[in-house]
């Protein structure tokens, strides 16, 4: 039902200022532009018809051409099938490693580095450096020992410095660099340099073009729980419109496939970012993701 007088609400009557403002809007002259809009609509409609006819003609021409020459149709199908199945190789960053040196024996170094809340001790490797002092005063590292103790010239020594390597599943290079800088600021740390770990991955072109990523869970979870967790984390990452599909592979393992416009770039990166946020994700595998 339409209002006969939209402004005649009791509120407007009680509030003449509000009513006056709406009145000013309602009286804004608008009809003068109608003839121009009408002529634009006619032109737009003509263009629309022309475009539709052009598309119809083009698609009909292609269909006619292919039907007239079955050999060409077969060749086109073969080329298409080959394009989809030929493997393409891509370099994917699997993880980052922050490696460096610290002026402490391994046990103490491990304890010092573990003071950073984001350092996972299981991903940290620390080896004691056994150095040899040359007569000219220079030092070279002769060996690395896990225990931090070594016997040099019949004397038992505790290595004064250690080498460390920390594996980070984070895929965002800037985040990893920030963490490396934090690590450099820790007492006794001599150096901390981040490096990507890359792997050449070969996948069929069709699969490489898929808008999808797959996650494997280490413990069985109900579908609804997985979906809820993924939804929460995607929302946290400001990814919207992502769909969750359940995939059962030939070997019987179950994976989750995420797809949709919310995943915007770097499929592998997104997968690892999600993996780093969701507990229980054992591994993630992602092919190229496009909007």
């Amino acid at each position, binding site marked *: *039902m339409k209002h006969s007088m939209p402004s*005649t609400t009791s509120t407007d009557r009680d509030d003449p200022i*509000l009513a006056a403002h709406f009145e000013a809007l309602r009286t*804004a002259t608008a009809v003068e532009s109608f003839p121009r809009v009408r002529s634009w609509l006619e032109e737009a409609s*003509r263009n629309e018809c022309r475009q539709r006819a052009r598309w119809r003609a083009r698609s009909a021409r292609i269909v006619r051409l292919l039907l007239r020459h079955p050999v060409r149709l077969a060749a086109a199908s073969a080329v298409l099938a080959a394009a989809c199945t030929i493997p393409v190789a891509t370099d994917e960053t699997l993880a980052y490693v922050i490696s460096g040196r610290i002026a402490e024996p391994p046990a103490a170094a491990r304890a010092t580095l573990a003071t950073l809340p984001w350092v996972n001790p299981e991903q940290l490797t620390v080896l004691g450096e056994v150095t040899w002092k040359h007569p000219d005063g220079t030092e070279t590292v002769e060996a690395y020992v896990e225990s931090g103790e070594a016997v040099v010239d019949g004397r038992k020594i505790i290595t004064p410095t250690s080498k460390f390597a920390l594996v980070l599943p984070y895929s965002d290079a800037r985040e990893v660099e920030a963490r490396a800088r934090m690590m450099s600021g820790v007492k006794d740390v001599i150096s901390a340099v981040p490096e990507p770990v890359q792997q050449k991955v070969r996948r069929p072109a069709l699969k490489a073009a898929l808008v999808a990523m797959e996650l494997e869970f280490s413990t069985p979870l109900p579908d609804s729980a997985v979906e809820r967790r993924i939804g929460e984390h995607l929302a946290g990452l400001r990814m919207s419109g992502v769909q969750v599909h359940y995939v059962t592979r030939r070997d019987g393992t179950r994976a989750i496939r995420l797809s949709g416009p919310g995943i915007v770039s770097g499929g592998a990166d997104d997968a690892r970012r999600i993996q780093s946020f969701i507990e229980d994700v054992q591994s993630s595998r992602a092919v190229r993701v496009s909007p």
Partner: protein
Amino acid sequence: MTDSFSDALQPCYADALRFCRALCARWSPSEAEDVLHDALLKALRGYDRLEDPTRFRAWLFQIIVRTFRGAARRGFWRRLVSLQELPSGEAFPEVFHGPEWCEDRLSLLGALATLSPKERAAVLLFEVGGFSIDEIAEIQGERTHSAVKSRLSRARSRLRKQLGTHSAPRAAATNARRSTCNRTLDHETLDAINNVY
């Protein structure tokens, strides 16, 4: 088809324009024109599928609301147009560039810009579109009337707060005062609105 579409559009054209401009209160006149352009194109394309021509007005306003929502979601990207989407024919006329649309005259636009898109749409559908609560609920895809009522109530109180700090156009205020005294409350949804306040 264009003729019948234009004929159907003509009676509600002015309200659609005012509604669209006020809905895009935060944006420039050109951006509001983009929304109107897209909405009219969508309406033109879908006009064949409109089963009940008497519902044209509500249908058109619904398309404007949806187009506006889509443009707002696209955010920054709405400023960029694909080369393929560039109109090849006649350019869309500049409908919001006249002096009657300037923000000095329509000080309401600034206050409307502070509302959420849904609140803005609800209050404008009521005030400019002249739709009832039922129709607004349908256009906004709400299942209950109370959602629309409370949205209207919130929007109005915010507008009142915002406009309280600005002076209304004096002549318009006088006219409105004079006219509201003479008007009769004949709208069927007035009771519903009154309950809200």
